[in-house]
């Protein structure tokens, strides 16, 4: 190996030998990220929550209330798991999380409806478990309005309206609600697709921070620089290579798996998606270089990486909208590459937008890569060779 020419190639060779010799180093560049992505996909692979448990308090005990209970049970998103006698018993089920909502069918329900009066069903739901409650609310309303429409149509037709006329009378203007790009609100398509890049950015930042930070921790900067022929540019370029290749391969596997295997084809610009992924990896490499350049300590750079990347999903605007954040959180969100990347992803992959609709975000990501990368590089070059900065734990 000593016959190798010194420079970027020699640094890459040195990195590769080290990675091959260290089980965990190689694992962090290969199967651990893939395992984390696979786990994330597996969590959401059902796509839609089915049979979330609810309880029904039937105070009417009529054939109508029993029919209604069967309808609630038959709705795809929920299952009637208990029919408690009273509210106290039902509340205990909620606190035990054995049920996430209670339908209360009041006494006199059948009597009122058959007598042409309106009746109200109470729907108590556990709002602390918002993800459960959202799906349940949809099903409860669907069952109630289907039944309501049925009763109303029968009444109208009894009064002599033709079925077609009865329908028009009943709802003069109907709103057809369409969820674009994600028709049946599939969480595999919504959350898994957003969470995997959120993990990817963590792994890429960790990879570059670890690759450079190791040299400072172990005080092996002279050896690293020697392999690079004394040039910082070659030293840093050689360090970037392995994390860049690994990150890009992970990104392509992610895109390929969901677009080709799972059938969520890229609806808009495929070139835009590829550019977005490549620039996300590049931006993360830039952020990682900056973190290690500022700290010159593996441990501090890892802490910084944790602080920047781990909560990034919460700030990204994907789950909770950016426009509803206070200015400080909004500003921090803009300072994270993930925020810009996820906007590109939802536009290109899901909304079917052409390339030009992401030009700004693509430029922002490139800006992260260049500005953070250049700053990090400058800091490494400026202070990195100073032995007083080595060995910090």
């Amino acid at each position, binding site marked *: 190996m000593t016959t190798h020419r010194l420079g970027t190639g020699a640094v890459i060779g040195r990195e590769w030998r080290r990675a091959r010799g260290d089980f965990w180093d190689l694992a962090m560049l290969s199967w*651990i990220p893939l395992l984390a992505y696979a786990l994330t996909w*597996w*969590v959401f692979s059902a796509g839609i*929550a089915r049979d*979330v448990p609810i309880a029904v308090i039937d105070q009417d005990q009529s054939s109508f209330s029993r029919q209604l209970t069967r309808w609630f049970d038959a709705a795809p998103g929920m299952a009637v798991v208990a029919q408690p006698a009273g509210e106290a018993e039902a509340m205990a089920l*909620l606190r*035990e999380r054995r049920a*996430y909502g209670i339908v209360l069918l009041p006494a006199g329900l059948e009597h009122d409806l058959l007598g042409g009066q*309106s*009746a*109200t069903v109470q729907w*108590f739901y*556990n*709002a*602390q*478990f*918002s*993800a*459960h409650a*959202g799906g349940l*609310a949809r099903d*409860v309303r669907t069952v*109630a309005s289907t039944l309501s429409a049925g*009763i109303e149509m029968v*009444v109208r037709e009894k009064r002599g309206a033709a079925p077609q006329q009865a*329908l*028009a*009378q009943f*709802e*003069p*203007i*109907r*709103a*057809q*609600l*369409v*969820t674009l790009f*994600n028709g049946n*609100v599939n969480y595999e398509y919504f*959350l898994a697709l957003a969470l995997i890049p959120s993990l990817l950015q*963590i792994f890429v930042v960790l990879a570059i921070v670890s690759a450079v930070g190791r040299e400072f921790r172990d005080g092996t900067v002279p050896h690293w620089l020697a392999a690079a022929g004394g040039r910082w540019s070659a030293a840093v370029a050689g360090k970037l290579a392995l994390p860049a290749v690994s990150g890009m391969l992970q990104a392509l596997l992610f895109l390929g798996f969901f677009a080709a295997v799972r059938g969520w084809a890229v609806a808009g610009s495929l070139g835009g998606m590829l550019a977005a992924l490549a620039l996300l990896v590049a931006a993360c490499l830039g952020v990682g270089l900056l973190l290690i350049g500022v700290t010159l300590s593996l441990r*501090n750079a*890892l802490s910084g990486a944790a*602080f920047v*990347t*781990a909560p990034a999903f*919460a*700030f990204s*605007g*994907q*789950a*909770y*909208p950016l*426009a*509803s*954040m*206070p200015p400080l959180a909004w500003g921090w*969100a803009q300072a994270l590459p993930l925020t810009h990347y996820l906007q590109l992803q*939802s536009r290109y992959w899901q*909304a079917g937008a052409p390339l030009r609709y992401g030009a700004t975000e693509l430029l922002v990501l490139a800006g992260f890569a260049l500005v953070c990368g250049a700053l990090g590089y400058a800091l490494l070059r400026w202070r990195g060779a100073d032995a007083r900065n080595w060995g910090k734990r």
Partner: protein
Amino acid sequence: MSAARQLWQGFAATWRAIAGDAGVLMLLFIAGILYSFFYPLPYSRESVQQVAVAVVDQDQSALSRQITRFAAAHPALKLTQVTPDLPAAQDLLWRGEIAGVLILPAGLQSQVLAGRAAAVEVAANGAYLVLNKAALNGFAEVVGTVSAGIELKRLSAASPSAAQVAAQRQPLNVNAVPLFNVREGYGAYVVPGVAVLIVQQTLLMGIAMLMGTWVERRAAPVAHTLAGYGGMLAAFASVGLLNSAYYFGFVLWWQDYPRGGNPAGLALLAVLYAFAVAAFGILIGTLFRTRERSMHLLIASALPMLFLSGLAWPDQALPALLRTARWLVPSTAGIQGFIGVNQLGASLAEVAPEAGTLLALLVASVLIGAWRWCRAAPPASPDSSGEPA
């Protein structure tokens, strides 16, 4: 040395080691405080108000203008543009400037006046579920209000009383009542669960960093004996307990989330959780050979753990194997248990499955962890007092 003295020595030596290590102090105390302000920050306004939307008015009639006015007045919607042009709305949607659009087709008014059923389309961006829901619900209310007005007029022409009209129009109503998180705040929903996870992850990282450092130095300040293990466990658990007290005592109050349902249950669960996570952390710590390695794994594992906990994603939708395996990490029972006692006001009996799981995890982690710890005694120094670092 007596067992009690060894226990005390292990406890004190672990605390001294924690206090003498800036990296570990950072993870165990500073990180938790930073995250307690940082993580709830995006949700501090708690709910989505004023979603930006557009109306595509292709009818240009009195009725379509009435619907548009209703949309502009709806408190949850911010009407940013009215256009007759569908591609213009598509453009706004792609640029991310609106989250939803109401399309009023040509001929709407004449259809309604002729007594035929008319339909309008509401479309919202499904890539953003919170915005999607707000836009769809807002527009559905707007259209429903206008539609009901027309219907009531028609019905009252044929019916004797207003009450009868209302009963005819909507025979079966649903009255939805949110419980526990009654304001339905987004932060109140997600942060209490994340807090439990932060307590776990910071403690695991801190323990693994300290123990990894001891392996690197080939010397631990704590004896490789059962008593030494016990002292160390108690020290780490006391750190977990302090963080739990901070989060469940101060942060929930400071952020004004629902809390305080069952203080006695909370105290017991906090002790159990602290010991379970500490024992789990020591077990993990015996696997790492360097100071920083554990951070890699633990930073990236937090997100999947949150979605396995059954808070942010219904556990009924998890694959069967994951539904069982998720109980192997303390955070699953911790998140469920703490939300039970803090936010739902559950009695200890009502969180018994979670408490039992934590106890089982504690016992298993102690058995394996203590065995690995005692076995790891360096052969060169059989003296149980260990070597100073």
